């Protein structure tokens, strides 16, 4: 490599920042003004950054006594009308689950970052994993809706953090940002535009006659308007199943009506929620489905495979839950085989199998803390392509 040509003027807006740093900046740009958390590797840099940045914009940073208190404080802040964030890793994410269910059930907008490290339990604090894919969707008890976003680069963490707040506000739901240790602590050169004049989404606030207000009576879009604190609307919020008036009920019709609305409310917003990336899928005989660092490896694997004559393509869900299943079905229809590399014992592959019912889905699973390499994915894609071809010509 030659010395860098200094005649190439450096672009002033290019910065070298980590994924966790990008998350903190994205949260600020989205209008987040409250953070409560408890430090845990490999997510602590988010708290560290926000402890300096939030006070500069008259925001509040609180280091709480534990992870349960952190999510509780975030829910309280959001009920108080502020965009709020907490960040953690596996063990802390487990602790937060009950209150994530509360936020889902009581429809309190909030954003939870979970940086995935080795598990179970305290696992491998400094090593990457992708073992919380199912927990992010199903970690709290009962049936509930949730949005989970899975960025794969520093730049995307910035963008998806902003989108997480927008979706949380629009859909009155907790949104989980899920990424692995590699992406979290990776520093990459990114160009961040000026977002200071970007109009960000705010939740729908109650308006109209106070006497008629029902805190859980939804509009056409399935989302009830929230009362701004101090606005004089009568509000009751509970984790118990509730009727439109917000008060607890076990009346079967009222529960079926209100819980039914809750469980289908995201369906009406799928255009805004769903997000995915496809690379070289048009002629792909082997389709790779991956997220995070495994998707970064797969991106390079595509070139290696194609150089060997194997037409490989990548489908990368950026929104992980609800899974963009229609898009995956369309892309996979043309492929002979599907390969799912992931840093766990088999989670994403289960969902891909479910969606593509009947199609052969091969999992490529690793849980020892070592990322799967591009060469390994390319080799597996090649053997899959050969096996599929042999089966067809037999």
């Amino acid at each position: 490599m030659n010395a860098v040509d200094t005649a190439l003027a450096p672009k002033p807006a290019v910065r070298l920042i980590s994924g966790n740093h990008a998350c903190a900046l994205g949260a600020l740009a989205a209008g987040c003004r409250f953070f409560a958390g408890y430090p845990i590797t490999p997510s602590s840099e988010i708290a560290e950054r926000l402890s300096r940045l939030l006070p500069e914009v008259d925001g509040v940073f609180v280091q709480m006594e534990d992870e349960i208190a952190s999510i509780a404080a975030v829910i309280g802040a959001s009920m108080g009308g502020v965009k709020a964030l907490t960040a953690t890793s596996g063990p802390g994410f487990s602790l937060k689950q009950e209150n994530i269910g509360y936020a889902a059930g009581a429809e309190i907008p909030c954003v939870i970052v979970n940086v995935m490290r080795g598990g179970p339990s305290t696992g491998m604090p400094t090593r990457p994993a992708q073992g919380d894919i199912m927990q992010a969707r199903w970690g709290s008890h009962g049936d509930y809706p949730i949005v989970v976003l899975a960025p794969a680069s520093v730049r995307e963490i910035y963008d998806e953090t902003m989108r997480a707040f927008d979706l949380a506000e629009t859909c009155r739901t907790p949104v989980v940002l899920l990424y692995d240790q590699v992406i979290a602590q990776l520093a990459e050169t990114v160009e961040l535009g000026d977002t200071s004049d970007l109009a960000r989404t705010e939740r729908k606030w109650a308006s109209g006659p106070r006497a008629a207000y029902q805190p859980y009576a939804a509009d056409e879009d399935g989302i009830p308007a929230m009362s701004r604190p101090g606005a004089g609307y009568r509000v009751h919020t509970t984790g118990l199943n509730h009727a439109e008036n917000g008060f607890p009920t076990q009346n079967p019709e009222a529960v079926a009506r209100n819980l039914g609305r809750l469980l289908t409310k995201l369906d009406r917003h799928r255009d805004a929620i769903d997000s995915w990336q496809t690379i070289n899928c048009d002629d792909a005989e082997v389709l790779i489905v991956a997220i995070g660092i495994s998707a970064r490896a797969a991106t390079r694997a595509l070139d290696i495979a194609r150089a060997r004559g194997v037409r490989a393509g990548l489908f990368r869900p950026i929104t992980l839950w609800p899974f963009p299943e229609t898009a995956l079905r369309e892309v996979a229809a043309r492929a002979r085989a599907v390969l799912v590399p992931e840093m766990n014992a088999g989670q994403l592959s289960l969902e891909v199998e479910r969606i593509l019912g009947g199609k052969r889905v091969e999992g490529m699973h690793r849980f020892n803390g070592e990322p799967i390499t591009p060469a390994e994915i390319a080799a597996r894609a090649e053997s899959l392509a050969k096996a599929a071809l042999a089966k067809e010509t037999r």
Partner: protein
Amino acid sequence: MRDSRVEIRIGGTGGQGLILCAKMLADALAAAGKHVAQSQTYEPTSRGGYCNSDLVISDGEVDFPLATALDWLVLLDRLAIRPSWPLLKPGALVIADTRLCPDLPEGDRRAHHLPLSRTAIELGSERVANIVALGALAALAEICERRALEQAVRADTPRSFLDLNLDALAAGYRLGEQAITAPSSTSAG
């Protein structure tokens, strides 16, 4: 694949400041318009244990941000040999500390044994061995402007360490420049 990808690893043990010096190099390269991905591997201890920081440098966007084939390897402890050796590209260049990493395995690589940590100790603190290594690497690899690297070192150094770090960087450059004229070893030791 024909791309401009260049990979560098700085390996050693936790507490040697490997991630910091890799960040300084990454900052200097980023300032010059390169696309850089800087990753880190460390143990859950504040000191000790295997640690490295890798740089993947490209003219375009970096697809896979982790090391797959190292062009340059800096070794500040023998602990870093085992995980790094299989990643060396044929003909890769290794800079190893004479004191902390005296023996190297066989392999198709060129190696410079340099007194990085001893130089740091002579300057007043072994803690700046990372910056000596950074200077030596920059001189040998010629990957960025010296001025840009100095600027990055200044930006990331507390005032009380600034003179020492700048001396360490200069000493590293001298070691690297001397090594260019000296023949590198192509076998073990």
